């Protein structure tokens, strides 16, 4: 009865559950979390917005005046935007705790500083 042996072993050892908000596992390298825009690099080509499968990215204006609106609640973290961006203006961060009570707070806006 292998299960009894296993059960006794588990009873005496530490549970595998992590007490989540207090104990965390760092996401591995290359994890696809929330994408962030580096507006100094962005050329406003609008490719990310057009290629996004879930319509999470909106681009307002063209070229140098462009402004990015990113709706994290629609995003499915496929990373296609970062892959398509010709200038590495988009980076996938390891940020994954993105839940929020209001939809407005799920909107990230990126504007140019100058």
């Amino acid at each position: 009865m292998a299960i009894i042996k296993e059960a006794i072993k588990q009873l005496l050892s530490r549970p595998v559950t992590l007490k989540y908000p207090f104990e965390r596992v760092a996401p591995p390298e290359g994890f696809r979390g929330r994408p962030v825009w580096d507006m100094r690099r962005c050329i406003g080509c609008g490719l990310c917005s057009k290629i996004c499968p879930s319509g999470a990215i909106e681009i307002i204006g063209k070229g140098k005046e462009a402004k990015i609106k990113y709706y994290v609640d629609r995003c499915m973290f496929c990373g296609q935007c970062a892959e398509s961006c010709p200038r590495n203006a988009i980076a996938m961060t390891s940020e994954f705790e993105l839940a929020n009570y209001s939809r407005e707070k799920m909107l990230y806006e990126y504007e140019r500083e100058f």
Partner: protein
Amino acid sequence: MKASRDLIAYNDLKRLIIDPGFCNLCGACEAACPIHALRVEKNKLEYVHDCSEYVEFCPICYDVCPFSEALLLETLSFVTDAPKRRESIGYYRKIVLAQAVDSKLRELSHSGGVVTALLIHAIKKGFVDSAIVSESEEEVPIKVKPAISLVPDDLLSAVDYKYFPSSVAKAFGKAVHEYGKAKIAFVGTPCHVRAIRKLEAWEHKIVESLKIVIGLICLWSFSFPKLTEFLKRKYNVKAGEIQRIDLNKEYKILTKNGKVVSVSLPEVEAHILDICKMCEDFTSELADISVGGAHPLKDWSIVIIRTEIGERLFESAVKANVIRVKNIEERAEVFTHFVEMGLIKKNAAIQEIERRRKKGRAIPPAFARLLELVPSEISLLSSLTAEQVMTRKVMTVKPQTTVEELLTIMTKHHHMGYPVVNEKGKLIGIVTFEDIAKVPTEKRKKTLIKEIAHKKLVTAYPEDSAMEIYEKMNKHKIGRILIVDKKDPQKILGIITKTDIIHTLRWPMKTK
């Protein structure tokens, strides 16, 4: 300048580069296009699908084209940290003669074998993980195709003279996108180097994987279909049979079965690509290291080291006893030949551009841009005085110096023009490399400088604006102007070359 740019750069690319036939199929646009809408296939740049469906505004393919006017000055920034700059050589740290220690490599490459030796060394050391080179196609040896070499042995198949355009920039894109390489050595002709530097200046993400750029010294490339057709028609040599084309002074076509066909220069010249006829860049001025054959020395290459990274690689290769070096001063004739070729290319380019302009034919925007300044640059130059721009330390020669002696000096210091100053320190003329080149080799020992120096000088004063000096240069079609004291027109204060002007134009970028 032209009217405002199109939002979709491909329209400009087509209008200004492809339609006039300037595309040399380097493939930089294919590598850079984020939506894979461009493809170099079978000697043609193919527009696979309408990119405006995916992007609203995209300058990429035009910006990175080596023949577009965009980002030209920015590309210079990769080499400007070099201490020296010379007309027709560019920015550099040092020039040496070098050869691969391994004689097999030298044999394979019909020259010093430096590029191959350097790459093999770099890959072995883990400095790079792959190299983009051109290699011969199996069926048609003279036709080259880009190759991504991963192990040193692969590189051996890729060493040879290249006289045809190859899509190495495209291969670079492939290496990054498809092979997932992160440390790449890039080898290419001046236009390829410019394309890759433009990608870098544009901050395209694929250049994050670029480690080192090795430029080849290049006279011209031939149009592959045109030349092979000509050879077939005239000499009945099929493209597949040609083993090698040897264009060092005697023009020979070597075939697979040992036949040698001699051709004349004008014959082959007719098949040089249009774009090459207008290209001024002989030494790959934007590369980290430029390498070329050291004619008439067989088995040696001339190496121009421009940047720190290039220097590091080269030194380590020398230290590892992969490459043997020789001081270039030891062989003045090599340098003379080298500079002569450079000047031939440059002058031919200027003439060709002039000719085309007169005929009202299109000129690649990049070359047009080098001849015209934009308003902001004009105002910058107008606001500067010659004193601010000029080089103060001027090397002078005495009138009694022989031509040969001067050549030695030139080989040492690489300046192309020297003011001639008499014992009293009075300026009496100027002598340039062009003047020397006119003197036949056998007479060089006896001829004195004063015999060949220009006595009629174009000079300027320190108070003049840089813009005036630039206009003066263009008016007289000269590359350097001496700055003299207003009170004593025979006293040299400094010198301004075209390189200095271009260097000055980059000032605003530096401060930014």
